[in-house]
C-alpha cells in the first residue's frame, strides 16, 4: 500500500475517533442541559399559570363576597323589593363581565332572583354550592350545568341577617372561557406545548389543542393524570417519558389546584423537547463531515511534495542502475527527504568518479596487452623455426607409442582369454560339483536306508559291508569337497557367508565333531579361550572347517595319549587362534611349503594317514581371504610338536570374495615383479619363477 493512502487512512481514523468521542460527550452534556432547561420551562409555566388561576379565582371570590355584602346591605334596607334586587343583580352583572349570572337562592334551594329570568323558580337544592353556600363561601368548580347545558363554575356565599342567620344564598356563575383563555395563553412553549385542566373524574375541563369537543366529554387516564390525581401535589412536579391523551410521547409538569379541584398540566411532545438536541447532533455531524473532508484534502495534498521527491530519487536510481551516472539529483528541501537526496547525490558523484578511474585503468591495461601480444608473436616465429627440428623426435616417439599400443591390445586379448578361462573354470566347478554330488546323494541315501533297515532286514555281514561302503563313500565325498574347495579358492569363486560369530561356540562345535576321532587315539582335546572375546564377523562354517582341519592334522600326527590344546587370544587388531600338538613337529625347510597345494612332508606317512595334502592349503586360502595370516611354529624336533597359528582381523574384511583375489595362491606377485623390471629395461619377456622366493618379499 502506498504511503499516501496509509497516511490518509491513519489520519481519518484519528479524526473519526476524536470527533466521535467529542461528539458523544457533547451530546451527553447537551442532552442533560436541554433536559434541565425543558423541565425548568415546563415547571415554570405550570407554576405561573397555577398562580395566575389562583389569583383569578381569589379575585372572583372576593368579588362575590363584596357583591354579597352590597346585596345584603340592599336587602336589609326597608325599601328593598325584588325589582330592586333584580336591577342590582343586572347592574352588577354588566360590571363584572367574568360572571354570566348572578342569582339568589332561598333556603329551600329555589332560585328566587336571577339575572336570567328563566332560572327563577328552578330548584337547585341538590347542588353542592347551595348546600355548602348556606354556611360558607363555596366555589363549585367545573361542573356541568344541566339547565344551561354547559360547564360552569359557581361561587356561592351565604346572605345573613342581623342575627347571623342565613336567609339566602348569593351565587354567581362564571363562564369558564376566561379560565380556558388563561390556559391557552402562549408562554413560548413551542408548537406542541399546551396547558389544560383535568377534574377529579378525569374529565377535560379546558379545551385541548389537538382535539375538539372534549369539554366534560373526554375522560383521560394518562400516567401524568393518574399520578397527579393520586398525589395531588401542591408543588409543581415533572414527569417525563409518558404517553399523553393523544398517545404522543411527552414530557410534562403538573400541579393540583385544591381550591378548584383540578389538576393543571403543562406538557409538550418529547420530539419537540429533544429537538434542540437533535439540532446539536446535526451540527456535530455536519462539523464532523467538514473536518473529515478538510483533513482528507490536507492528507492528500501535503505529502505530495515529499512523495514527489521520493519518486524523483527512485527514477534517478533506476537510470543509474541502467548505467547513466550523469543525471544530478534535485535537492529541494532541507528535511529528512532532502538530506536523503543530498547524500544520494554525494554517492552518485563518487560513483561517477570511480567509474571514470576504472575507465582509465582499463585503457592502460589494453595498451599493455597490445604490447605483450606483439612480443608473443615474435616468440611464436622463433618457435616455428624449431618445430621442424622436433618433428624427427616426434616420429620416433610415435613409433614407440604404436608398439606399446600393440602390446596393450595383445594384453587385452590375453585378458579376455583369461576371463573366459575363469568363467570356464567356474562353470566347470559348478557342473562338476553338481555332477559329483548327485551320484553321492543316491549312494548315500540308499546305503543309509538299507542300514536303517528301511528296505528290509539286513544281516550282520551285510551291515559290516555297508559300513565299509559308507566309510569309503564319506571319504570320497570329503575328497570331492576338498578338491572343489581348493578349485574355488584358486579361481576366486568360493562363496563366503560373513556373519557375527561367537568364537567360543564355534570352537566348541569343532571339538565336538573331532572328539570321536581324538578318542580313538585316546588323545585329550582341551581349550584355552580368553574371556570376554568380542563377536567377530567371519564365515563361521569355513573357519570351523579350518580349525577342524588343524585339529585333525594334530590328531593324525600326535602319538596316542597325548594332548592337543586349542587356544584363542585377543591381540590389538586380531584374534589369535592356536592349535598346539605334541607330535613329531615340522622341520624348518617345510614350514612354509606345507601350506602349498598337494604338498606333503612325507608322502609315505601321509598316505598312511590319508589325506591328499589339500587341507592346509584350503585352510590358508580361507584365512587369507579373511585378511588374516596362517603359519606354523615348530622346533622341528620330534616330540616337541608344533603350534599352528592363524589370525583373524577384528575389524571385518569387507567383500571377502574380492579380497581373496589379492591373495596370491600361485605367487603371481613375484612373476609380476619380474615383468615390471623387464619393462624398465625396455624388454617385454615372460619369466617363470618358482614360488620359493618366499612370501615375505
Amino acid at each position, binding site marked *: 500500500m502506498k504511503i499516501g493512502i496509509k497516511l490518509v487512512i491513519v489520519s481519518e481514523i484519528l479524526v473519526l475517533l476524536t470527533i466521535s468521542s467529542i461528539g458523544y460527550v457533547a451530546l451527553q452534556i447537551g442532552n442533560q442541559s436541554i433536559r434541565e432547561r425543558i423541565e425548568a420551562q415546563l415547571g415554570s409555566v405550570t407554576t405561573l399559570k397555577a398562580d395566575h388561576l389562583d389569583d383569578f379565582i381569589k379575585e372572583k371570590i372576593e368579588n362575590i363576597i363584596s357583591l354579597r355584602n352590597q346585596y345584603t346591605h340592599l336587602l336589609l334596607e326597608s325599601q328593598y323589593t325584588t325589582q330592586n334586587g333584580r336591577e342590582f343583580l343586572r347592574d352588577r352583572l354588566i360590571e363584572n363581565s367574568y360572571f354570566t349570572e348572578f342569582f339568589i337562592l332561598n333556603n329551600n334551594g329555589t332560585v328566587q332572583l336571577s339575572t336570567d329570568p328563566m332560572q327563577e323558580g328552578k330548584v337547585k337544592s341538590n347542588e353542592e354550592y347551595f348546600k355548602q353556600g348556606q354556611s360558607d363561601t363555596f366555589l363549585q368548580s367545573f361542573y356541568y350545568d344541566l339547565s344551561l347545558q354547559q360547564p360552569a363554575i359557581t361561587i356561592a356565599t351565604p346572605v345573613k341577617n342581623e342575627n347571623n342567620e342565613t336567609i339566602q344564598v348569593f351565587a354567581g356563575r362564571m363562564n369558564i372561557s376566561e379560565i380556558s383563555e388563561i390556559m391557552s395563553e402562549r408562554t413560548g412553549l413551542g408548537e406542541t406545548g399546551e396547558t389544560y385542566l383535568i377534574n377529579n373524574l378525569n374529565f377535560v375541563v379546558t379545551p385541548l389543542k389537538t382535539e375538539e369537543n372534549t369539554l366534560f366529554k373526554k375522560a383521560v387516564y394518562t400516567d401524568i393524570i393518574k399520578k397527579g390525581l393520586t398525589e395531588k401535589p401542591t408543588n409543581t412536579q415533572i414527569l417525563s417519558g409518558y404517553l399523553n391523551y393523544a398517545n404522543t410521547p411527552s414530557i410534562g409538569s403538573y400541579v393540583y389546584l385544591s381550591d378548584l379541584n383540578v389538576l393543571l398540566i403543562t406538557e409538550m411532545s418529547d420530539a419537540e423537547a429533544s429537538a434542540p438536541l437533535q439540532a446539536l447532533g446535526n451540527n456535530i455531524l455536519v462539523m464532523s463531515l467538514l473536518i473529515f473532508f478538510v483533513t482528507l484534502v490536507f492528507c492528500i495534498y501535503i505529502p505530495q511534495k515529499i512523495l514527489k521527491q521520493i519518486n524523483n530519487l527512485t527514477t534517478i536510481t533506476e537510470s543509474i542502475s541502467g548505467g547513466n551516472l550523469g543525471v544530478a539529483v534535485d535537492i529541494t528541501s532541507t528535511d529528512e527527504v532532502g538530506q536523503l537526496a543530498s547524500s544520494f547525490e554525494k554517492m552518485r558523484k563518487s560513483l561517477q568518479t570511480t567509474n571514470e578511474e576504472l575507465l582509465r585503468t582499463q585503457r592502460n591495461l589494453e595498451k599493455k596487452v597490445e604490447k605483450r601480444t606483439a612480443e608473443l608473436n615474435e616468440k611464436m616465429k622463433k618457435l616455428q623455426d624449431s618445430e621442424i627440428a622436433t618433428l624427427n623426435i616426434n616420429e620416433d616417439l610415435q613409433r614407440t607409442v604404436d608398439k606399446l599400443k600393440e602390446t596393450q591390445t595383445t594384453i587385452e586379448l590375453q585378458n579376455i582369454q583369461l576371463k573366459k578361462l575363469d568363467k570356464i573354470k567356474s562353470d566347470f566347478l559348478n557342473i562338476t*560339483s*553338481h555332477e559329483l*554330488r*548327485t*551320484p*553321492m*546323494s*543316491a549312494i*548315500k*541315501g*540308499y546305503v*543309509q*536306508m538299507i542300514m*536303517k533297515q*528301511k*528296505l528290509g532286514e539286513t544281516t550282520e555281514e551285510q551291515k559290516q559291508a555297508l559300513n565299509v561302503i559308507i566309510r569309503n563313500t564319506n571319504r570320497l*565325498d570329503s575328497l570331492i569337497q576338498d578338491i572343489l574347495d581348493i578349485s574355488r579358492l584358486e579361481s576366486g569363486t568360493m*562363496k563366503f*557367508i*560373513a*556373519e557375527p560369530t561367537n568364537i567360543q561356540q564355534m570352537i566348541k562345535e569343532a571339538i565336538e565333531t573331532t572328539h570321536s576321532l581324538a578318542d580313538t587315539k585316546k588323545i585329550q582335546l582341551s581349550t584355552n579361550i580368553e574371556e570376554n572375546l568380542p563377536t567377530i564377523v567371519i564365515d563361521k*562354517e569355513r573357519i570351523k572347517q579350518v580349525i577342524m582341519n588343524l585339529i585333525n592334522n594334530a590328531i593324525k600326527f600326535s602319538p596316542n595319549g597325548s594332548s592337543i590344546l586349542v587356544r584363542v587370544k585377543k591381540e590389538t587388531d586380531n584374534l589369535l587362534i592356536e592349535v598346539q600338538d605334541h607330535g613329531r613337529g615340522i622341520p624348518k625347510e617345510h614350514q612354509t611349503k606345507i601350506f602349498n597345494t598337494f604338498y606333503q612332508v612325507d608322502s609315505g606317512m601321509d598316505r598312511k594317514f590319508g589325506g591328499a595334502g589339500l587341507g592346509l592349503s584350503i585352510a590358508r586360502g580361507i584365512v587369507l581371504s579373511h585378511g588374516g595370516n596362517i603359519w606354523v611354529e615348530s622346533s622341528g624336533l620330534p616330540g616337541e610338536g608344533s603350534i599352528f597359528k592363524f589370525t583373524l582381523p577384528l575389524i571385518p574384511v569387507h567383500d571377502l570374495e574380492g579380497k581373496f583375489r589379492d591373495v596370491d595362491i600361485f605367487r603371481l606377485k613375484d612373476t609380476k615383479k619380474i615383468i615390471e623390471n623387464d619393462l624398465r629395461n625396455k624388454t617385454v619377456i615372460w619369466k617363470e619363477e618358482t614360488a620359493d622366493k618366499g612370501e615375505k618379499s
Partner: protein
Amino acid sequence: MTKIMIVDDETDLREMLNIMLRKEGFETETAENGDDFLSKIDGFQPDLVTLDVMMPGLTTREILEKLNEKKTKPKIILLTVVRYSEEEKQKLIQRGIVDYVTKPFEFDHLIDTIHKYVLLNPVR
C-alpha cells in the same frame, strides 16, 4: 496322511527319495522338472515339496513365480549344493521356501528337517 511331492531331474535321486519318504509313511508323488511339477501340483495338492535347484527347463525362480498362480500352496524345501547366508535365507522364505538341505544329505537330517514342517499324520 501328509502328502509330499518330490521334484528332481535325476531319476535315481527321485526314486530314492520316493522310497525313503514312503517308508517313512508319507504319501508321495514325483515330478521330473518345473513344468511337470506345476502341472501335477493342483491334482496332488501336496503339503510339502522337495525341490531340486539345478534342473533343466524353468529356473527355480520361475517355478516359484508360477507357483503363485496355483491353488495349492505347499511348503517347499530346497535341495541345494550351496549354503545360503542369512540375507539369502530371508529372500527364500519370502518366496515360500521354508528351509534347505545341502546335497549330499544325511538321511536323518533330511527326515528331521521335513518333520520340522509337517506332521506324519496331521490332524484334519
